[in-house]
């Protein structure tokens, strides 16, 4: 009797263990994500419909769409949107093309293969802050190396921070420098999965190595190219650390004339310098929407372009 009761209790416990414990194991993830990821994101929506200023001790008032209306009439918002798109295009397109080319180079039989791959990846492991600070020095107006090099070829020195185009170009170079090698390694991984006999057949048909690259390699990489484009877009539209630090001072305006203030930086300025949390939340939600639209359009476009190849 006692033994029976004990073993049936043990069986019940073990049933409970195998039925219940999986939920216990995945709980920490969902709990923490819910509290620190999902809740803030949704709550941003609520805050965006309020006039909410932290300096008033969190007092807030429902204002409906007023923040969004103000945003759409705010020239600083449109300025930051234009800057973001400009920097995004300037950094993403050359970056992915260069990555494709570097991956192609790395896909040869190479000596010191690992060292070369590590060398290419090195920029990606360094922090945005470190990278931006070093480049800001290199792009310095008076003693920067870039201007010195330009001087050697007879071009005048450029005040990189001062103009719209030059600051966008410099920031794009910083972004591209950090991410090209990472994307190259991702392309390399998929290049190595392409069956060799496709190239052998093409070679027998007399295709040149450039033709092989554009007719076989690129179309075969289609899913990877879509992946990297979407990821670069999601990251590119959220750029804020680079323009913040490129200004050299801790003001989040993105230059004296806001010439390189991005949307994320504009949100940061409104939220954590002006303490207008409602307005900043409206900007955040709009940015979220823009990112979603871009990711989808991007996905469809890249799929089509790659299909045509």
């Amino acid at each position, binding site marked *: 009797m006692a033994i029976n009761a004990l073993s049936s209790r043990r069986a019940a416990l073990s049933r409970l263990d195998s039925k219940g414990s999986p939920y216990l194991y995945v709980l920490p993830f969902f709990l923490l994500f819910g509290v620190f990821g999902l809740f803030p994101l949704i709550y941003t929506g609520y805050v965006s419909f309020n006039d909410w200023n932290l300096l008033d001790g969190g007092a807030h008032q429902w204002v409906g769409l007023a923040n969004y209306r103000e945003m759409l009439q705010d020239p600083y918002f449109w300025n930051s949107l234009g800057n973001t798109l400009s920097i995004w295009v300037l950094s993403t397109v050359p970056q992915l093309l260069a990555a494709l080319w570097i991956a192609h180079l790395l896909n*040869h039989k190479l000596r010191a293969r690992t060292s070369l791959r590590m060398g290419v990846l090195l920029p990606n492991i360094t922090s945005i802050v*470190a990278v931006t600070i070093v480049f800001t020095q290199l792009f310095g107006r008076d003693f920067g190396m870039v201007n010195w090099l330009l001087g050697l070829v007879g071009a005048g020195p450029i005040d990189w921070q001062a103009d719209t185009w030059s600051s966008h170009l410099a920031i794009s170079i910083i972004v591209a420098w950090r991410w090209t090698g990472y994307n190259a390694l991702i392309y390399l991984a998929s290049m190595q999965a392409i069956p060799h006999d496709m190239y052998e057949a093409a070679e027998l048909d007399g295709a040149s190595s450039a033709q092989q690259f554009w007719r076989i390699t690129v179309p075969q990489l289609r899913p990877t190219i879509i992946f990297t484009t979407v990821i670069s877009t999601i990251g590119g539209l*959220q750029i804020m650390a680079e323009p913040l630090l490129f200004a050299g001072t801790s003001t989040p305006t993105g230059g004296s004339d806001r010439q390189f203030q991005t949307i994320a930086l504009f949100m940061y300025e409104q939220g954590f310098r002006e303490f207008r949390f409602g307005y900043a939340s409206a900007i955040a939600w709009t940015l979220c929407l823009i990112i979603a639209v871009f990711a989808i359009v991007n996905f469809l476009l890249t799929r089509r372009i790659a299909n045509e190849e």
Partner: protein
Amino acid sequence: MTALANPPSTRAGTPAPQRPPRRRSFGYPRRASVWTYAALIAVVAGSIFPLYWSFVVSSQTSEAVAQVPPVLIPGGHLFDNIARVFDSTDFAKALLNSFIVSGSITLSVVFFSTLAGFAFAKLRFRGRKVLLVLAIATSMVPQQLGIIPLYMLMSEIGWTDRLAAVIVPGLVTAFGVFFMTQYLGRAVPDELLEAGRMDGCSTFGLYWHVVLPAARPAAAVLGLFTFMQAWNDFFWPLVVLQNNATVQVALSSLASGYTTDYTLTLTGTLLATLPILVIFMVLGRQIVGGIMQGAIKG
């Protein structure tokens, strides 16, 4: 094959080494030409140069940096400059903070991701698929955008300027869960778990005695990436830790100011990058492999 084309081997008994039939650069991958090497070396040089430059500047005096043409060779002032960095800001504390934050996030992510990955890959329960898809979908959510309510939450519970504000939200990642689910699905045979159960192991016992040891290689890669990401994180610590900075925040305040002392700043850059650089030197092969295997999210 004629005797003329293939001279007999010189030593009796050992056949001449069979050379593969020579084809011009046929097949794939093809042999690298001098130009391939030259181009790759140029790319790598471009990758290394900014870091090398920060080393050059941090070993020079402030005057040397303002020279035209620029000095390209390290000087002898590295330790003076390092001392200056530690004098001018509380850099030591920032470094310590970063180690605490990155270390605890890394341990926790590896532990919880392996636990959740074990459940998703090896245990059967209702709603498993839905929950897994949900977990993966969360990695697509841009975290930056919830930063305002997150900050409000942190000030509500009094965590601003406390390291917990940075550590706790980072304790688990969707990427880690996904990565471990993928890995454990392949790496742990079901028979092994069955055998463990026969021996009377509880599910947590299985996790501890069977799954964790089997997960070691993947845990190492995940831990590396988590550490690097936590170490390099900037935006959230900047917002929430104004007076108790991590090293990236300290670095950014070193760099901001109306006149920037570049020698000081780039020395700080070097110090902030050094731990990651050391890890990269030692474990670069695994890091490269991890990226090529699973398209690690940056």
